[in-house]
């Protein structure tokens, strides 16, 4: 096992980790003192580029590169939006930063805003997380009083206001253009691209959307340098990330580990192995949208590129383990039902496809399916891929295709035996 490196969670075991006092005592707001008014915004962006920081919201897009899409000098005000919608099933990590170390996020917001030339930032928090909004609200007040937010921050001449915005229960608002619509007070329906948010985003202005965890990494990157961060991770995937581990493991929870840590190590060392020491049947490596992996595939290094190479994805870092005894048709039906429920309905392949997939899966799972239903399911999934406004349709199609490919015999057994041949519910 590699040596333990904690960046985001270094203060989590302190009772008062959320306070300004603890944060400043442990090096907090030092990066702001080093950077604001002293290092040029372009050099900050360069440093973040070199750090290999990747977007940890799902897509893994290189953060520094994303920031460089804001044209300079801007013709309109620039906005920074922080994505704290945390809706991807199996993901529960951003909430830990918002509640247990909100100042790390605020300092990151401050540094990113400085680099982008933004003077207003909104943290969009999923509506159910009222405890996160409270914690952030208090931390913002503390930071304002200490002079880290507001006008002429630390006499640098830089101004920034940070606001917390509540979501209202819609998974799709985690998609960045839906989030922008939602912030504008509209239904969260994704926008057609182009124009990209960096050109026309919220309120018609250039906008960058970044995940909570991504931005919380920025202070330490600027304090310790891009090379330090890049070295911690794997090739082209800098630093650590927070893996949310759930399902049939003995010690579920959030684990901060270097990018590229093998999935086997996460499951069997950090998360303690499978409940009851039952064999693993399958594992979702990056939130429910990620294609599933079979037990023989878990030596993969958990970063965006290595997972893409084996046909899955890093996504949100949400790992869901399923032990032998779990019915894969049942599990897939659970996911399809989720996507059918959350489709915003704008694109017919998505609206119809997710709905049909849910119905067909319900039929197969209930023992009422026919052999042609399996083919139908495959056709539906292919028909909804890569032809919609946002990636939600693919987020449903990719898992369907992977379950069909990797556990096909189980689908066939349901049809043949006209019942669920596996114990349909929990394994342990």
């Amino acid at each position, binding site marked *: 096992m590699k040596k333990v490196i904690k960046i985001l969670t270094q203060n989590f075991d302190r009772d008062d980790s959320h306070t300004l006092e603890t944060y400043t005592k442990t090096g907090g707001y030092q990066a702001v003192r080093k950077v604001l008014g002293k290092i040029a915004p372009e050099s900050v962006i360069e440093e973040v580029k070199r750090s290999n920081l990747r977007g940890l919201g799902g897509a893994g897009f290189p953060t520094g590169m994303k920031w460089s899409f804001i044209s300079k000098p801007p013709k309109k005000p620039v906005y920074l939006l922080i994505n704290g919608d945390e809706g991807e099933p199996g993901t529960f990590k951003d909430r830990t930063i918002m509640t247990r170390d909100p100042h790390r996020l605020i300092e990151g917001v401050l540094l990113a805003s400085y680099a982008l030339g933004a003077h207003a930032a909104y943290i969009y928090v999923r509506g159910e997380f009222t405890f996160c909004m409270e914690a952030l609200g208090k931390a913002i007040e503390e930071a304002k009083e200490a002079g880290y937010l507001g006008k002429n921050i630390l006499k640098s001449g830089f101004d920034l206001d940070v606001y917390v915005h509540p979501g209202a229960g819609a998974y799709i608002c985690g998609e960045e253009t839906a989030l922008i619509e939602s912030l504008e*007070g509209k239904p969260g329906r994704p926008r057609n691209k182009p124009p990209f948010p960096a050109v026309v985003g919220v309120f018609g202005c250039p906008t960058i959307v970044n995940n909570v965890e991504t931005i919380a990494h920025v202070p330490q990157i600027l304090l310790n340098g891009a090379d330090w961060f890049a070295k911690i991770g794997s090739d082209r995937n800098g630093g650590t990330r927070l893996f949310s581990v759930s399902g049939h493991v003995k010690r579920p929870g959030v684990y901060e580990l270097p990018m590229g840590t093998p999935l086997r190590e996460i499951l069997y060392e950090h998360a303690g192995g499978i409940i009851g020491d039952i064999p693993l049947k399958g594992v979702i490596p990056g939130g429910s949208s990620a294609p599933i992996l079979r037990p023989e595939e878990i030596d993969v290094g958990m970063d965006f590129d290595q997972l893409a190479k084996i046909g899955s994805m890093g996504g949100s870092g949400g790992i869901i383990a399923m032990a032998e005894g779990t019915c894969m048709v049942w599990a897939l039906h659970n996911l399809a039902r989720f996507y059918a429920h959350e489709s915003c309905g704008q694109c017919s392949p998505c609206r119809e496809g997710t709905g049909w997939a849910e119905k067909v899966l319900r039929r197969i799972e209930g023992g009422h399916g026919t052999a042609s239903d399996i083919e139908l399911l495959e056709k539906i999934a292919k028909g909804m891929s890569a032809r919609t406004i946002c990636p939600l349709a693919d987020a449903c199609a990719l898992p369907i295709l992977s379950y069909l490919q990797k556990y096909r015999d189980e689908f066939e057994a349901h049809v043949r035996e006209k019942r669920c041949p596996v114990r349909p519910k929990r394994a342990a």
Partner: protein
Amino acid sequence: MSPEVLAFSKEAQAELESILQAYPTKQACLLPVLHLVQREFGYISDPVAEAVAGLLDIPLAVAVEVLTFYTLFARRPQAKYVIQVCRGLSCALLGQEELLVYLKNRLKIKEGEMTPDGLFELKTVECLGGCGESPVVRINETYYELQTIDRLGSVLNELSKGPKREA
């Protein structure tokens, strides 16, 4: 300024002022204001929706479209305790279905229904973002994690002791 239907408490009035200052457009205030009025009045009735639309200078149709798009806004009076059972995959893997059956039997209601005394309402919801402590049940704004039938039973016993919802 605010019409009579929006008779706010002092704290709510102060919150409203700070919401109005936080955004460059009035419509952007819609979600936070809807949350605020729902906290104040328990749900968002037609007159309240109309008053909010008036306050923010947006057509009523737009306000209603937004209201209905998002699942957290209630259009009718709620039970005192709204029980939200997570049916996401991680919770389902660890016994959520049994919890739901237990709740239906104990409360003698189906999903989407309210007990006749107005105390409990039962809902299933998508992943609550607490999968590390599955199965998760949220009651009003409180998360109850690592639930078992026994634990959930005691929570309900405790909640049943309080006064019922005012008529």
